């Protein structure tokens, strides 16, 4: 009798337990939680703040920060312009691929190229959230909210592994850039 | 005393409880046996052995255990 109740109770535990996926959220913390250091628990306090990634859909291709460039190249084909900056003392190549309207910058890690930043060149395209060059700060706040940090006239929204920068000169967005966070190589 | 030995032998038929004095030290009685034991004693002698009395010294031998029971009875 009691035993059965107990089993039901257990079952319940598991069922509730089943609805907790989002413990693996933050990729940032490399801290380890193991069975002995019971209290490093701190690390996986269930984070429900919806931190998003900033990605750009360009010619039906998803461009994600830290994303591998190879498959993207296959779809987009030869860039209009191509430039590789052999960083001082050759710490991997930083490549720049220019396609009508955007400039995709990559960094090299373990022989593969990953996207480090995307720069808008003109107002022929908009961010996935619908902001274009020469728009206004209001446009930005409308879709991205107030959670930006401001450095001089550079407005930045941070995601988990990506951020988006808007530069505003006399009330006009003059630069839009997607940037990957935590890129080791700081070349420009 | 004999009742106690009986109870013990119900747990482990193969142990010589009359003479063994290392029931705990040699893991002959594990914590589960001990609980069962306490329960049996409770129903047999009508004494409840409090948790703080569950220490190796009291459970290492049938003699010690019996002593404990007697102590608690008075």
């Amino acid at each position, binding site marked *: 009798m009691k035993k059965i109740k107990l089993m039901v109770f257990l079952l319940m535990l598991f069922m509730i337990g089943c609805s907790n996926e989002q413990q693996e959220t933050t990729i940032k913390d490399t801290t380890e939680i193991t069975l002995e250091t019971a209290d490093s628990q701190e690390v996986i306090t269930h984070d429900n703040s919806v931190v998003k990634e900033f990605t750009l859909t360009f010619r039906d291709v998803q461009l994600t920060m830290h994303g591998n460039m190879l498959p993207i190249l296959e779809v987009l084909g030869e860039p209009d312009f191509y*430039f590789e*900056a*052999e960083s*001082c003392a050759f710490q991997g190549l930083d490549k720049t691929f220019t396609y009508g309207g955007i400039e995709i910058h990559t960094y090299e890690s373990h022989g593969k190229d990953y996207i480090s930043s995307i720069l808008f060149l003109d107002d022929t395209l908009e961010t996935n959230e619908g902001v274009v060059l020469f728009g206004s700060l209001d446009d930005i706040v409308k879709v991205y909210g107030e959670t930006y940090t401001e450095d*001089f006239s550079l407005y930045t929204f941070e995601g988990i592994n990506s951020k988006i920068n808007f*530069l505003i*000169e006399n009330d006009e967005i003059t630069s839009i850039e997607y940037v990957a966070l935590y890129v080791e190589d*700081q070349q420009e | 005393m004999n009742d106690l030995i009986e109870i013990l032998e119900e747990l482990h038929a193969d142990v010589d409880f009359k003479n063994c004095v290392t029931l705990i030290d040699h893991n002959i009685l594990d914590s589960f046996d001990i609980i069962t034991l306490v329960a049996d004693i409770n129903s047999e002698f009508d004494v409840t052995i409090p948790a703080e009395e569950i220490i190796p010294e009291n459970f290492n031998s049938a003699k010690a255990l019996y002593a404990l029971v007697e102590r608690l009875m008075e």
Partner: protein
Amino acid sequence: MKKKIILLSISAILLFGALFLLEKLLMPKHVSGIVEGSLIESYYNEKLKHDILFVGDCEVYENFSPVTLWENYGYTSFIRGSAQQLIWQSYYLLEETFEYEKPDVVVFNVLAMKYDTPQKEAYNRMTLDGMAFSKSKLEAINASMLPEEHMIDYIFPFLRYHSRWSSLTKDDFQYMFSKKPLFHNGYYMRVDVKPVEYIPKKKKLSNYEFGEFSYKYLEMMTNLCKENGVELVLIKSPTLYPVWYDEWDQQMIDYAKDHNLMYFNFIDHIEEAGIDFNTDTYDAGLHLNITGAEKMSLYFGEILKEQFDIIDRRNDPVYAEAWIEKSTFYYKMRDQQYHELETYGEIMMYGEVVK
């Protein structure tokens, strides 16, 4: 007890002996591949005085050729530069160099002004590991460390490189205690050519003002030279990338004016110097190759000649002899590189020259 102490000290000696050898073995040698790592230490083999001292990043050690300066003007010069050498590193290198000698002119390339904070451990290492132990070195380390770095890792590089045991090569054993010559008074020679095709458009910045640290160290550098009666010359090398913004240029012009220093932005003198970015760069406009560097040195030599009266030491037998040796090595390496370029289409073994 006594016996114990003796035993302990013996073991201690053994331990530290072993660690010393291991450190020598495990430290990266930078004699092939990324040779830039051995630029800084190459200075300590120098015996004779230098009248001109270059400090800065790749924009000095790849764009100026001391041998050319010697052959055409009799100026003795040395380049204390390494990859992405930050301004405070340049400052402390200068400070250290002044302990050994006082040149007439110090030339600093201002690109480093754009970095106001430490950038990358790998680059720190390439500059700092080569420095001889000194107070300046400690200060340089302190200024360059990233938050997650430790001073002790620089003082005992073993702690940093211990994991290289798995990737040791023949070089590590061969050059454990001494390295082969790779550079020409700090000049990193490249003869290959890669013309400029396309330069990405200037990305707008939110703030063009150089950081306060950059300025702080530029000030310190200026004062250090004054105190030592050394002329400081600021230059910006003629390269097309990384971008050198006009806003940056203006700041340097102003700084030079305020401190009555000379400042030359050679980007504006590319034609005059006769540099052709179809033939004179080996990486599409970032750095000059040997032809570019030689042109640059000739052009700059003229300027130095006009501005200062630096001794022409070509008639001084001691110097002449030493520099003949240097230039023979210079030409050997050049020919070797051209040879490799013809036979393999690229430079295979940098500095594999029998001296």
